[in-house]
């Protein structure tokens, strides 16, 4: 596409005939059909729906001044909740790195009856409402557990809930890369006498690293903000199983919006950092590809 697209979509519009030589391509027709007006409306929509409310959180968090903000963020309960949230989310991401890669490998390279069915069900945690996910896990791993495992209201329960809702991220980001990966390299290594472990470590894994990392970052981001699946199973015990999102919810319910906004601002910063990290990984992955 040439620089003509910068001159604005309207200017190039009238008349159906294209320049005969076709040397200078015009702005993409699809882009002309929505044009600057469409972009303006869409950006306004994004601003009103997403950016305006989120900026309200940041502004309100400073309602009581910096001192109050700091007090709210560093109160013992807030710190304990944030610490547990970050640690349990890191654990979730780590387990997903191993479990997700393993499952992706099995789904791509292995063959067994019912594989397509299993593959389709991987996305269920995305489709299932989070509150239902929490209830589902509480049914199997709660007080009335039919298998005798009762982990309700423990930190382990929070981890299980987070593993459930983040299950698809690493699998779905590794799978396509693994499908595209040429097995010729592996066969060459095998014929040269490399052992399985060596082949995995030196050939398969390096190709998967960007996909694994971006999947893990998405899982981490999701875990930090998760609420619905945790609220029933965690029991919300301060200093033990209380995560930040549930803590914020309690602050809202107890009519402390400024403190809630302060803790939310910290969570927002974590989300932004993860988003930036994902974009960084994406760029690195593309460069790595070449």
């Amino acid at each position, binding site marked *: 596409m040439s620089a003509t697209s910068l001159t604005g979509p309207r200017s190039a*519009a009238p008349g*159906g*005939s294209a320049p005969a030589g076709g040397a200078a*391509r015009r*702005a*993409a*027709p*699809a882009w002309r*059909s*929505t044009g600057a007006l*469409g*972009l303006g409306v*869409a*950006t306004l*929509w*994004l601003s009103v*729906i*997403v950016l305006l*409310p*989120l900026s*309200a*959180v940041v502004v309100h968090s400073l309602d009581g001044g910096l001192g109050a903000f700091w007090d709210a963020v560093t109160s013992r309960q807030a710190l304990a909740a944030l610490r547990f949230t970050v640690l349990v989310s890191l654990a979730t991401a780590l387990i997903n790195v191993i*479990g997700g890669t*393993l*499952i992706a490998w*099995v789904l791509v*390279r292995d063959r*067994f009856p019912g594989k397509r069915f*299993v593959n389709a*069900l991987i996305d*269920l945690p995305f*489709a*299932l*409402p*989070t*509150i*239902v996910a929490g*209830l589902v*896990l509480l*049914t*199997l*791993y709660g007080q009335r557990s*039919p298998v005798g495992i009762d982990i309700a209201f423990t930190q382990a329960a929070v981890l299980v809930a987070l593993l*459930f809702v983040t*299950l698809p991220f690493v699998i779905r980001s590794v799978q396509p890369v693994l499908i595209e990966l040429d097995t010729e390299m592996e066969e060459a290594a*095998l014929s040269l006498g490399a052992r*399985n472990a060596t082949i995995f470590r030196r050939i398969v894994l390096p190709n998967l690293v960007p996909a694994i990392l971006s999947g893990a970052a998405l899982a981490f981001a999701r875990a*930090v*903000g998760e*609420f*619905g699946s945790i609220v*029933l199973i965690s029991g919300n015990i301060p200093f033990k199983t209380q995560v930040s999102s549930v803590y914020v*919810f309690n602050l*809202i319910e107890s009519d402390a*919006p400024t403190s*809630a906004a302060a803790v*939310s601002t910290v*969570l*927002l910063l974590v989300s932004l950092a993860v*988003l930036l990290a994902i974009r960084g990984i994406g760029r690195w992955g593309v460069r790595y590809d070449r």
Partner: protein
Amino acid sequence: MTVDRRWQLSLRVVALTYLGALLFVPVGLIFYRTFEHGFAAVWESITTPAAIHAFQLTLEVTIIAVPLNTLFGIVMAIALARGRWRGKGLVNAFIDLPFAVSPIVIGLSLVLVYGVHGWFGGALANAGIQVIFSVPGIVLATIFVSLPFVVREVTPVLKEIGDDQEQAAATLGAGAWTTFRRVTLPAIRWGVAYGVVLSVARCIGEFGAVSVVSGKISGETDTLTLLVDKRFSNFDLAGAYAASALLALIALVTLLAMTTMNRRREEGDT
């Protein structure tokens, strides 16, 4: 295949055990628990006036939120894939925010803008419009959380097909709108459909953001997910299971639609 049979089998067993313990058995159990006392009890509990109203409200909110986000998604995807403008990188990053931000923070953010003490709270109260603890708040929260789906599904499709066909149509004298309707839209329709399915699932299933702004007034601002929570808190386990099973059924239908569409997309069916 570079691993021997023994390794292959043990990896398969580990993967399937993990999936079974985390996913298959729990989801299967919810249906068993729901129907262990017979179908009649379940039917009764999902046809109470409160449940029917919750179902209607959920449907209503979805019907408002999904078309708006689909329209936004298509326009934004075209702007991102075809246009060149300043601030594109920034807008592109902002679109992912609803995925990254906690639903509780989303709910709080709406309270801080539209609530009684929020930025527009006073003006809205004077105009007699209630947003928070009312249906408009639920709609706003739902639009917020489901905003990125269509954009994120359509943008890569647009980039992949390129603009050659669109250029050709324009060369042959088609106007911008005709080109869009006859060339672009058919090419991206599976991407759009996939994004719509994901949006619908998210709209029906949203809990955190909605629970902050709804006020949970029975028969007025209760959605299906809020109903599950309320019944569970009121020790109506059977009722909570019944509503959950209904939601899980919707999720399974969504999954079926996703799988079918994925296959058609991969086959390049247009």
